């Protein structure tokens, strides 16, 4: 099998594109020296791709530039990115740069930050990349269907001095609900998925393809960037006989620590690993997904080639350089409680929807099942659940009152996860999407330094569509 793990837009071709652009827009001599502008065109359109095998049936998808995942956008920290997004769909769309701390107008949320891109129209996004790390892009308009049909791609911001590895590999994980003819089941947004665990598929792909094997070399060190692009599936990965190091969550550096058990990665979350291939030539080991207890399966086999890259594996794992988020001052931070409710077995009796109190059954009939602070959102524009003063520190106590998992994403900011169920977290990890287990309480802390109204929602996309969404306003 060919290596399918490097389908990205390479840095080289990107530089070529940028060079061509530089010829058009000459930089005035008096301009302050700055890193170059990178440009790329993305076209969202219906297409077909080989999800299940390389030469058989194609699956009809919606994709960026005709492929799933969309092109890997790779720029260096501090560079400016300009992306012209052309909408070739028959419905409106937007692009959200998940995890990147961009200005409000570039955040890609329909009606809240921009007018959605109409069919046939183009919208140009342009922003600086302040922080290095592993990010991704996807629509925010009817995302439960647009992302579910294949509209997403990796966005890698390289460190100025990246850690020394033999290979830098991205695995975009996704799942699909396919029918017997390898076509996508059309039951997007159905009531069962919405009120339970979301749309979880029956076919798992790595970089847009069912993958049996990943080739490796003995002694090799890989930086493995995991991106969960699934609507709802939580991956719980185990690397048989190997103990990778976590070096970043959601793109943000963390004290390197070894994974001994299962590595959970919820929808929209990313994890950067250092994987040392300590086996011998000819060995093989399984990467398994054991998250759903009765539905464990092998994601793929890592197979060692015949040659050894180096005799002694590399030993030390260095921390990535810090990014640029301001450190929250916990002593002076203002604390707010946010309750997440609804869903099956949630025991929720009443909720507010469109300004009035309704019962759970009426809510369900109207396509809603979830609430934030007792309110089921009916669109992207709403009264803020919180208004925060710019540059102040805040602690949000997130209270999952439901029987389900929820990966909660805050736009425009990264936050530290400081406690779970009252216990301080070991790494105080920076995240932009924090997964709450059923009935779990999680505290996050951050400086509200990015002005605007920001989405705060569950990234199980059926839960988001089902009302688990709010706006946090930063003045």
């Amino acid at each position, binding site marked *: 099998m060919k290596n399918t793990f490097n389908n990205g837009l390479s840095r080289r071709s990107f530089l070529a594109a940028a060079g061509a652009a530089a010829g058009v827009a000459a930089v005035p001599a008096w301009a302050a020296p700055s890193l170059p502008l990178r440009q790329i065109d993305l076209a969202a359109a219906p297409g077909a791709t080989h999800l299940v095998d390389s030469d058989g049936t194609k699956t009809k998808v919606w994709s960026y530039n005709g492929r799933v995942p969309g092109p890997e956008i790779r720029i260096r920290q501090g560079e400016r990115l300009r992306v012209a997004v052309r909408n070739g769909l028959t419905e409106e769309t937007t692009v959200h740069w998940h995890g990147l701390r961009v200005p409000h107008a570039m955040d890609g949320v329909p009606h809240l930050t921009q007018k959605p891109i109409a069919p046939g129209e183009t919208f140009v996004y342009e922003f600086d990349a302040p922080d290095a790390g592993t990010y991704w892009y996807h629509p925010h308009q009817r995302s439960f269907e647009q992302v579910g049909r294949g509209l997403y791609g990796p966005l890698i911001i390289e460190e100025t001095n990246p850690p020394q590895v033999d290979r830098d590999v991205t695995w975009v994980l996704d799942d699909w609900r396919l029918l017997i003819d390898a076509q996508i089941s059309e039951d997007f947004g159905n*009531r069962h998925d919405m009120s339970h665990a979301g749309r979880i598929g029956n076919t798992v792909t790595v970089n847009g393809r069912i993958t049996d094997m990943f080739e490796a070399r003995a002694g090799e060190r890989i930086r493995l960037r995991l991106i969960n692009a699934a609507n709802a599936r939580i991956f719980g990965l185990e690397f048989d006989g190997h103990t990778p190091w976590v070096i970043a969550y959601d793109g943000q550096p963390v004290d390197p620590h070894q994974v001994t058990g299962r590595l959970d990665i919820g929808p929209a979350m990313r994890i950067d690993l250092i994987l040392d291939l300590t086996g011998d030539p000819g060995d093989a080991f399984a990467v398994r997904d054991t998250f*759903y*207890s*009765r*539905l464990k399966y092998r994601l793929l086999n890592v197979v060692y080639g015949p040659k050894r890259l180096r005799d002694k594996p590399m030993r030390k794992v260095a921390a990535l350089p810090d990014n640029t988020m301001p450190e929250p001052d916990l002593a002076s931070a203002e604390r707010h409680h946010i309750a997440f409710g609804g869903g099956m*077995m949630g*025991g929720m009796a009443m909720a507010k929807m469109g300004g009035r109190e309704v019962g759970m059954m009426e809510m369900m009939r109207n396509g809603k099942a979830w609430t934030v602070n007792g309110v089921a959102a009916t669109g992207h524009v709403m009264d803020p659940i919180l208004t925060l003063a710019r540059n102040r520190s805040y602690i949000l106590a997130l209270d999952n009152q439901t029987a389900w998992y929820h990966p909660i994403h805050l736009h425009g900011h990264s936050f530290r996860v400081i406690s779970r169920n009252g216990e301080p977290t070991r790494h105080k990890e920076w995240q932009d999407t924090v997964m709450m287990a*059923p009935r779990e309480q999680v505290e996050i802390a951050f400086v509200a330094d990015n002005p605007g109204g920001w989405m705060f929602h569950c990234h199980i996309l059926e839960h988001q569509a089902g009302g688990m969404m709010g706006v946090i306003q930063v003045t």
Partner: protein
Amino acid sequence: MTIRNRIQAAIFAVLLSAVTAVSTLAADRPDATIIKNPQCGCCESYADYLRENGFKVTVKASHDLTLMKREMGVPDDFAGCHTMVLDKYVVEGHVPVSAIDKLLAERPDIKGISLPGMPQGSPGMSGTKTAPFTVYQFGQGPAKVFTVE
């Protein structure tokens, strides 16, 4: 493995084994197979309730409940949080044993029965019963009331 087999294996493994269960008829009541969301807890309580009432119950987890329900002809409005295959019937939601016994005794020409909406106090659910449970039948003409318990 061909692509067709591959997808078939993924989608229908659970369904096929559920159908297999139909052929093993017990003396009293047929064996039941409950197919549920892997994270759902109330379906387990419902399985326990059936076992206490003399059913032999197998519980299977699947991410493909919505596909199976469609395959088995369950209308969206009558889809329960889990699906049970019993003899030639589909039983949706927390249906009381008395309604199941009626179904097995009368053996009507329908696809199945459903107690929609997970009412409080129904078997396997928490809370207390506040109103009669209306069990519906589907699969022969429009859905209609099967029994009120």
